């Protein structure tokens, strides 16, 4: 049944896009920061994982575990030293600074790793599949989707069940009053970006194992991530998953009509959703 198969593939692809988007959703939701270097940060994390794998000879999942604290620190520093300075009502400064960062990252990676396509080897998992009767699903896409769900559940737990999560939400609402509660907004933002980078590392793991990557694939990933966040609506992580799935399914349906329609279909789906619901599917009531 070709339709069912296409849709299932699309849903699982949506999991990957949701992983791309989750970190972005976190940062955008808390500080309204549009980080145009997000895709390139994912690519950078992929190269980091690749390096750890080749230097230490361990499997990618362990390598990702090692890469996570490194990426956390990098994100924390980036926010503290650079991005905290440009937060404010004007959207241009963060847009331009992160644009610049994107260019710098892409070219630094080009210098460091050359333009050759790379891949993180997932071993047997890459081709393993699971026959579910009417459809057969690849283990890797399934794992990706499951990871996306886990990440979203974990982030929601963090947001809604912990003191830090309360601090995130309060700072997002009103940084000045948050400081009256003893919260340091600058520190909270740095923490948020650091956590976002951990999610980025997980996304990079699956990006690297799924397909070839090179220093220039960042911006396309950024776009898918943003589309997923915007479709989902500001502040809703499950909405981000829904957004990812919508784009994923649109893409696979488009690809089944003609391969060159794949990406186009995803973008068109995004535009259609935005036409009907300019604030996304599940926006917060207050913005």
């Amino acid at each position, binding site marked *: 049944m070709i339709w069912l198969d296409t849709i299932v593939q699309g849903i699982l692809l949506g999991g990957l896009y949701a992983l791309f988007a989750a970190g972005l959703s976190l940062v*955008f939701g808390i500080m*309204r920061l*549009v980080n145009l270097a997000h895709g390139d940060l994912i690519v950078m994390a992929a190269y980091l994982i690749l390096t750890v794998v080749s230097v230490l000879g361990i499997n990618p999942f362990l390598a990702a575990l090692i890469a996570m604290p490194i990426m956390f620190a990098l994100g924390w520093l980036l926010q503290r030293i*650079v991005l905290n*300075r*440009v937060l404010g009502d004007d*959207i*241009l*400064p963060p*847009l*331009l*600074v992160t*644009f*610049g*960062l*994107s*260019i*710098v990252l*892409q*070219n*630094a990676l*080009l*210098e460091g790793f050359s333009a050759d396509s790379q891949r993180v080897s997932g071993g047997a998992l890459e081709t393993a599949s699971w026959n579910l009767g009417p459809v057969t699903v690849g283990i890797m896409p399934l794992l990706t989707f499951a990871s996306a769900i886990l990440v979203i559940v974990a982030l929601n737990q963090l947001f809604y069940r912990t003191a830090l999560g309360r601090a995130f939400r309060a700072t997002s609402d009103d940084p000045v009053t948050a400081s009256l509660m003893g919260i340091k907004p600058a520190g909270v933002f740095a923490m948020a970006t650091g956590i976002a980078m951990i999610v980025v590392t997980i996304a990079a793991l699956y990006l690297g194992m799924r397909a070839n990557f090179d220093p220039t694939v960042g*911006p396309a990933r950024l*776009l898918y991530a*943003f*589309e997923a966040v*915007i479709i989902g609506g500001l502040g809703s992580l499950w909405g981000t998953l829904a957004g990812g799935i919508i784009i994923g399914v649109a893409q696979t349906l488009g690809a089944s009509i*003609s391969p*060159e*329609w794949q*990406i*186009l279909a995803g*973008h*068109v789906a*995004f*535009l259609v959703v*935005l*036409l009907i619901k*300019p604030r996304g599917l599940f926006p917060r009531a207050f913005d």
Partner: protein
Amino acid sequence: MAYQVQPRTRTSQIAGALAVGLVILGIILPVFASRTLIQDLFFILSILTLAQFWNLLAGYGGLVSVGQQAFVGLGAYAMFGAVILWGMDPVPALILSGVIATIVAVPTAFFAFRLYGAYFAIGTWVVAEVVRLSFATWKTLGGGTGTSLPRTASDFWGTAWVASLFDVRAAAARDIVTYWLALALAVATIGGIYALLRSKRGLALAALRDNFQAAKSVGVDAQQLKWLVFLVAAFGTGIAGGLIYLQKSRISPDAAFSVTDWTAYVIFIVVIGGIGTIEGPIIGVLVFWALQNTLSDFGSWYLMILGGLGIVVMLFAPRGLWGLFSARTGLQLFPIRRRLLSDHET
């Protein structure tokens, strides 16, 4: 005590005279300039045009678009289409470039104006991607790999006359004609934008930018102005796109709709030069060109420096180089404000 409104300053009058002189120099330049210089100037003038329009959009209109490359590509493909499909001469086809870009700008604005801030920016980028991917499926115009201008089109309007006037070969004549067109476009763009900003509409734009609510409360029609600015920018960007690809004479979707070449660089130029001023993009283009000339051998390092410079400027000098200079000296070459002078000051 009577008051007078004084729109000009001494400096601007001097600058105005200088500008006229520069333009005249620019026109007669091909007589003694090398071909390389003509080509460099073409590049500078065409990017300057793009930068002025992006500045109009973002710096004055508050519309931060990351999708202007859509109109560059549309203008370019419109011209290629007119030449390849209808056998038109490329130069008059440039008008079509502007028209087609403006036509597509209408539904784009209709959609994009429902979004604000970052959503607007990403929305315009996605629209540009949709246009790019659509052209990549259009096989008649080369599809994903692109196409070249047919040989018959290379003797376009003016090339024969220039070739005989300056006694140069056809290729050099083409460069000179496109250079003049770029000069005309840049002068018209800067002149037009300056005129717009000094008009009532320009005042309204500035008011909207400074205080949205207050401006609307005195009757400024924000929607109308946004549409005006967006369509004008699309028109001009389209013509520039057509002209740029006339000079290149080869097109592909990835090149014509490149977000790096037609948006990233343009944004850096405007930001480094000074956003929200007419002088800014001029400075920015010169800095950009100088950087490209001195560092182009360094490939990715050049781009890293450009990106780093953009970051540093945004962090420490958000009004750009011209903003720094203007704040220190109080100079304005293209004054938009009007000063109120009393009797004894005039």
